[in-house]
């Protein structure tokens, strides 16, 4: 019996050794079948955190306004991956299909860690959306490193049966291909294989007008196949998350895992500005505050409103929710907007057209959702239309106007240049924190990822507000000011040392993305904005 047992064990081990290479044959794989290996709980945690660090790198890259897969973007991501000690993943993203043992190990880590995070991220819409977006960035980066034959091999493995256009078919649409295929020279286009697919499968190419589009079909070349495969990959992850959600209850019966997953999850809920708990800000002080403690985007909304007694929908949303976040009560808010708007319209029209919206923002009407103030990421993404004053000024304003604006606020030319250097290179949030340091004579650089965070930070620096301290949080254990302000700290006690730090940094990045991601779900309810419905 003893003998028998030993023999079985040995064959098991042997099976695994053989299977590693066949199991993970390529750097780029669709995460289709959940792994069935046994792993230690320590490794489970380690892999989860490693994956988070990886995704966070892509998250930071996304906020940098660098074009995806451009050289700058790659340089940034590569440097960050190295800094985070994720060199092995970097090799997956850039190296060829090596058979080296360490690379195969990394593939395994890549594969398993993805499935672990699915468990943590399937819990809510917002988490899923963030997870999918970052996974897609990572996937695209890996895919972009593949050579022609490798792509073919990959397509075979995942059963993609696309036939390239024949020469004759290609000839029929060649003018369109020459004109509209982005990123390839005419000479190259002649050589490339093209695939004809329904436009809904390559939405990102359609969105940015990077391919030829005719009668509902997109013509995609080999280099852009990533977009097509990406759609497939995304469906796969979406389905995987939906499936994970179904059996999450089973998993949670294992306390060791559930504690960790839940803590992971809870620590992502970043700072919530939906309801201001600190103080009521009287609207009479807004003029003063706008000069001292507003970030530029809000100051411009405020000034626009004071000057024109009107502000368009996007601005009302951005500024209105910000006001809610800094502590203006609903009653004050109604009074504030009414006083301003009625300089140009009668009170009746205001009541009919705008009051609903303000109540709605405070969750008192319609869907009764208490809306979250916009984060930097959302504001930066906002597309301004004519006559709008919202959006991120560092992005939306022409450099000349931006300079004029800042000098009218009394910034010195050298200070303006400093801010401009960041703004023109696309680092809008860094430009904003520079602006903060200059206007507050502060030497520490704050992390600005939310206008309400800016305001709060400013109030703290000026000594008008205390840092928020959560009860269970020991005072000395705070590398970052913001951290003290994040609520719900109790669940973090299980996360130790570096991991804890790590998670907190994640939480902060997370928070701004999460808030921006509520955008979609909000969009549904926003539609009930009466003023938006066309007459």
């Amino acid at each position: 019996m003893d003998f028998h047992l030993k023999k079985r064990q040995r064959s098991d081990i042997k099976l695994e050794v053989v299977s590693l290479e066949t199991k993970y044959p390529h750097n780029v794989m669709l995460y289709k079948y959940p792994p069935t290996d046994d792993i230690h709980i320590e490794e489970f945690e380690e892999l989860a955190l490693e994956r988070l660090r990886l995704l966070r790198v892509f998250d930071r890259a996304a906020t940098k306004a660098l074009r995806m897969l451009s050289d700058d973007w790659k340089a940034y991501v590569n440097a960050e991956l190295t800094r985070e000690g994720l060199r092995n993943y970097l090799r997956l993203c850039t190296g060829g299909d090596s058979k080296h043992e360490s690379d195969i190990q990394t593939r395994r880590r890549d594969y398993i860690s993805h499935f672990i995070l699915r468990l943590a991220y399937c819990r809510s819409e917002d988490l899923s959306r963030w997870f999918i977006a970052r996974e897609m960035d990572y996937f695209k980066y890996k895919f972009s490193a593949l050579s022609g034959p490798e792509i073919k091999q990959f397509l075979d493995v995942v059963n993609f049966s696309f036939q390239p256009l024949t020469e004759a078919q290609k000839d029929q649409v060649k003018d369109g291909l020459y004109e509209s295929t982005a990123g390839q020279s005419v000479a190259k286009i002649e050589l490339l294989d093209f695939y004809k697919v329904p436009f809904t499968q390559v939405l990102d190419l359609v969105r940015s007008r990077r391919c030829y589009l005719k009668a509902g079909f997109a013509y995609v070349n080999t280099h852009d196949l990533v977009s097509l495969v990406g759609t497939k990959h995304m469906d796969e992850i979406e389905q995987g998350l939906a499936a994970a959600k179904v059996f999450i209850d089973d998993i949670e019966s294992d306390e060791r895992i559930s504690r960790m997953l839940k803590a992971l999850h809870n620590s992502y809920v970043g700072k919530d500005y939906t309801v201001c708990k600190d103080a009521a800000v009287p609207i009479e002080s807004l003029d003063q505050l706008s000069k001292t403690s507003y970030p530029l985007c809000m100051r411009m909304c405020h000034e626009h409103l004071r000057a024109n007694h009107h502000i368009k929908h996007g601005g009302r949303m951005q500024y209105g929710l910000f006001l809610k976040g800094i502590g203006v009560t609903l009653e004050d808010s109604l009074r504030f907007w009414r006083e301003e708007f009625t300089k140009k319209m009668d009170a009746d029209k205001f009541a009919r057209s705008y009051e609903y919206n303000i109540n709605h923002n405070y969750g008192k009407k319609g869907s009764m959702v208490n809306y979250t103030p916009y984060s930097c990421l959302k504001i930066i993404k906002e597309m301004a239309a004519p006559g709008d004053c919202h959006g991120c000024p560092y992005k939306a304003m022409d450099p000349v106007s931006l300079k004029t604006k800042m000098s009218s606020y009394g910034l010195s030319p050298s200070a303006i240049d400093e801010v401009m250097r960041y703004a023109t290179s696309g680092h809008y949030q860094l430009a904003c924190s520079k602006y903060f340091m200059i206007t507050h004579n502060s030497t520490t650089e704050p992390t600005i990822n939310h206008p309400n965070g800016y305001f709060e930070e400013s109030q703290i620096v000026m000594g008008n507000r205390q840092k928020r301290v959560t009860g269970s949080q020991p005072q000395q254990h705070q590398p970052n000011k913001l951290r003290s302000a994040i609520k719900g700290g109790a669940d973090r006690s299980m996360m130790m040392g570096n991991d804890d730090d790590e998670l907190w940094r994640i939480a902060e990045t997370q928070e701004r993305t999460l808030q921006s991601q509520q955008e979609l779900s909000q969009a549904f309810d926003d539609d009930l904005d009466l003023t938006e419905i066309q007459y």
Partner: protein
Amino acid sequence: MPESNTEEGNGPQQVSQQSAAPAYDPNILPDMLPVYYRRLFPHQPFYRWLSYGLSEDGIFTNREISFTLHDDIYVRYLCYDTPADLEKDICARNPYKIDIGAVMSTRPKNFRIVPGGITPVQRELVFDIDMTDYDEVRTCCSGAEVCQKCWKFMVLAARILESALREDFGFEHVLWIFSGRRGIHCWVCDQQARLLDARGRSAVAEYLNIINYVTYKGSSTPRIQLGDRIHHSLRRALKFVEPMFEEIILDDQNLFGTPKGVSKLMHIISDDGARNELAVYLQKSHEDGTHSRAIWESFARFANSMRTSAANVWSRKLKHVVEEVQLCLLYPRLDINVTKGFNHLLKAPFCIHPATGKVCVPFSVSAVAKFDPTTVPTISQLLQEINAFDDKTKSYMEMPEDKSRIKDHKKTSMFKGVLVFEEFLRKLERSFKENSMDF
């Protein structure tokens, strides 16, 4: 001249010519609406549209309808089991405005009791273009006003959008509606369009929305970067824009006729160096108030010479600067949030605009240039026409109500709009027949 007069010379139009159209008075709208909904609103075609031949489950019954009643009372999440229910409710409540939302996963009226809430499952792909977005490029009117000169912006917008929807996306069933005052709505009703998810809608919207707005010197300025090669959709848009550019921008609007107008032209140019050079050049060669044509010619000449000169002072990204300016001024300015929102409500065709009293009539995009927003019939005019017609024929009282009612709109100048609508429906319904034969 109203286009209906040129094409339909008989019966109803003579009636409308006999007496001047009465001015519309918003205060008596509540008194007119019952008659309008009972006698003129095309209930039957309206249902034919929203039922889509009942080709899919719940396509009519799960559709969200909403009413705006007197004093801006807003009622959402209405839905109807049968066309008769819908008609009865419209005639009973006489809404100031009817909005159409999405087809939901279940009856919208149950929205509070369905666990997890109701979700939209399909909805026409819609576009909204509003004249107010053109305020900075029109000198003839501003705000809510609209004249035939500014309508030309809409003409171009409709043509460009229609061609892109048909040629690039392969959509066929595109319905265009005058929104009653100063804008146009477009409903794309193909099944593929209706079933687009939120991501798909936003991709299509951004594909069609090419203008970025940046704040330059305190005002928002449209900017476009075409790059080295021009995408085929924009090249096609240029084919529409170029022939109309001189007429609209230079002659009608004389947009560059003032120093302020010239600075608008400057602001569109994104390259600082090029902009400054051009400003100097134009200042030297023209006095303030020079006609737009002269300014434009100088600009085009200057841009050409700079582009082709050996010194190549202007970088390669200025290769298409002339085209960029033309598109910035005339490419359709979409309200893309309307298009992106799966669940966005949009005013139904044949509503009465409460401020102008005008009917939101469908128009055909091939005849969009002949459409005149200033002569779209108002509700007062329609009621007068129908009364005049009845007086003349004395038929209304004698005929049984249900038979005569269907035809009432034919007695008025709304007739044309209903015809366009029915033509659209005929094609739409034919596509269902073809589809069902396939299976």
